[in-house]
């Protein structure tokens, strides 16, 4: 009798201790979010954090039933600062998962460190091709895109549907620009088109007159890849140079994305571009997302907002798969790679074997509706991988797209 009592007491104690330990483990899930909050890209950082926060607000600030604590750190758009802040998030705050980041060089700087820390990090925006191609990082889970991904289908579309034979490419002179032009050129030329000229204005260019003067007038169209302040100026100058009437303007996704559209005027109308998202996407889920986002933040969501919104959901799905046990990082990482989201605002998303999303690519045309500019979707390529129709092994044999690859054979 006595022993039985002691035994049950001991068992009780054990259970209590066990559950106590369990309680201690189930503190909040800490998320380290890196984004530029000051400097030239601060507005993009705002779109990113807004998107991420919006999902959390809509879902009771919980991942898999556990409270979420988001720690936002300012990268100032600088790789060294991003590295310092990464260190802070991991070593001082002991975050369970990381997300965010903007600019390719920040992505390349963080990836090896993330692998060293062995903490999963979601890349919703940073698009440098090689991060999921030739230099993959084990602990990086890309929930965004590769720079060349939308332009593989777009190159083919320009040749086959739009029927262009000769196109001039003008792109900002850095990796993002090269990869966008490279993807476009590869499929455009394989479909019978010719890139007849490549112009590379440096990063931060705002006066395009010297470049516009050089554009070959015997081409059928111009493919332009602009970002941020360049995207704000380019369409207007293109029109003022009298080119808009002669040569239709095509663009990489960021040339006309929702981030710059509100600041552009009628000069942007008619611009055709390709991206993984359009705020004008006509699905119930996206319409709700756009309406809700506008109500909350007073502006149309950009792809930065969408990818970060979906990334929050992504973490939740993975955490639910493993019963909220994000402390087991290997298991958490494996779960993150397995997540499939059939109904994100941008459409269905899942990862390929190399860790980059397979997702829809939208061909979009800038149109004016109710006095606002929108990227109307004119064609959808469903479930496009970063390798397009090529075999990954074959594709990876070619070098990463650069200023000189593919070479300009028709220049």
């Amino acid at each position: 009798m006595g022993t039985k009592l002691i035994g049950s007491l001991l068992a009780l104690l054990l259970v209590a201790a066990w559950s106590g330990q369990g309680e201690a483990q189930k503190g909040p899930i800490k998320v380290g979010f890196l984004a530029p909050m000051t400097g030239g890209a601060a507005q993009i950082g705002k779109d990113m954090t807004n998107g991420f926060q919006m999902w959390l607000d809509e879902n009771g600030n919980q991942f898999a039933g556990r409270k979420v604590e988001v720690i936002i750190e300012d990268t100032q758009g600088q790789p060294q600062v991003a590295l310092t802040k990464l260190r802070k998030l991991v070593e001082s705050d002991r975050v369970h998962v990381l997300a965010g980041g903007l600019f390719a060089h920040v992505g390349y700087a963080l990836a090896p460190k993330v692998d060293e820390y062995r903490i999963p990090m979601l890349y919703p925006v940073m698009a440098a091709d090689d991060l999921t191609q030739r230099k993959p990082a084990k602990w990086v889970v890309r929930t965004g895109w590769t720079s060349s991904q939308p332009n593989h289908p777009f190159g083919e579309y320009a040749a086959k549907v739009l029927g262009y034979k000769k196109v001039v490419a003008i792109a900002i002179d850095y990796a993002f620009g090269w990869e966008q032009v490279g993807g476009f050129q590869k499929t455009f030329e394989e479909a019978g088109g010719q890139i007849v000229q490549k112009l590379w204005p440096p990063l931060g260019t705002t006066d395009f007159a010297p470049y516009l003067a050089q554009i070959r007038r015997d081409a059928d169209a111009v493919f332009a890849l602009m970002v941020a302040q360049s995207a704000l100026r380019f369409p207007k100058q293109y029109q003022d140079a009298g080119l808009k009437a002669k040569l239709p303007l095509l663009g990489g996704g960021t040339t006309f994305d929702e981030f710059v559209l509100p600041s552009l005027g009628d000069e942007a109308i008619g611009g055709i571009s390709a991206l993984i998202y359009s705020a004008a996407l006509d699905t119930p889920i996206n319409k709700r997302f756009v309406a809700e986002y506008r109500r909350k933040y007073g502006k149309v969501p950009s792809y930065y907002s969408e990818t970060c919104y979906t990334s929050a959901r992504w973490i939740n799905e993975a955490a639910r798969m493993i019963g909220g046990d994000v402390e087991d990082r290997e298991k958490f990482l494996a779960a993150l790679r397995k997540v499939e989201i059939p109904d994100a605002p941008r459409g269905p998303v899942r990862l390929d074997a190399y860790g980059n999303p397979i997702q829809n690519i939208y061909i979009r045309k800038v149109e004016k509706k109710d006095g606002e500019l929108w990227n109307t979707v004119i064609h959808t390529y469903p479930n496009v991988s970063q390798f397009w129709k090529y075999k990954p092994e074959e594709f990876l044999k070619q070098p990463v797209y650069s200023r000189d690859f593919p070479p300009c054979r028709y220049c």
Partner: protein
Amino acid sequence: MRRAAGGAWPRLAAAAAALVLLLAAPPFLSSFLLALLTQSLIMAILAMSLDIVLGYVGLASLGHAAYLGLGAYAVGILTTRAGAGFWTTLAVGVGLATLAAAVFGLVALRAVGVYFLMITLALGMVVWGLAHRWVTLTQGDNGISGVPRPDLGLGWSFADPRAFYYLALAAFVLAFALLALVVRSPFGKTLVGIRESESRMRTLGYHVWLHKYIAFVLAGAVGGFAGVFWAYYNGFVSPADVELATSVTVLLMVALGGRGTLWGPALGALIIVLLQNLVSVYTHRWLLILGAVYIGTIVYAPEGIVGALRQWRKGERAWARS
């Protein structure tokens, strides 16, 4: 004579106290603060090297990030491509920066004042342009990632943040000792003379241009020395290290701490690194605070923090005497 001795002892004691503090600090700091302190030490080397040109010769340079960049890129390229060890990269990094300063000095030292500022700015942009455009070597805008932590062949690993901190501290002490010796030597005194009156020094028979040139090259070499550790610390090198913004930041570190004082710029580096990385943790309005600090410095301490301290001590002594 008596005054010199009286001035040296408290200064030595202060330096010793600071060193002891720096040596003893790591166990009491979180790893994030330790990282920031490491970063401050490396930036302090760069700021002190600029102080030679700005504080002792009196020439404001806007291209000092170039030497940091050259040292850093030497490490980035040699370690990732050739698997080079620490001592090779150190020699090449410092050598490259020295060489660049030797060439740049020939061009820049033809001018003074704002023209010197503009020429150094242009030369700094040349190095930035190389980093940005010579893609086959520097990987352009993407930067070079995966720089390993250094192996000095001493048998312990510098992957540990604490070990690396002591390495940076050793580098800092070495740079500080070297520069302190230089500015206290007759050569250093001549530099100050040139700063105060170039024509008088020339009349006295000093080779003014050569003195300035040697100081300029020395500053570049020490800047490259900082760059080597900078690359190892970050594990990453990109054109951002060579940017104009970096040059401006270093210039501000020197101005904030007090030019021509050597340890003032080191203090300035510490303050700016902490403001940029620590204050931004608490508020996204950290730039406002940084701006207020600059304005406060200009209004209340135009000679920098150390300059203001000296002014205050001088005033106190004068008051005591009267």
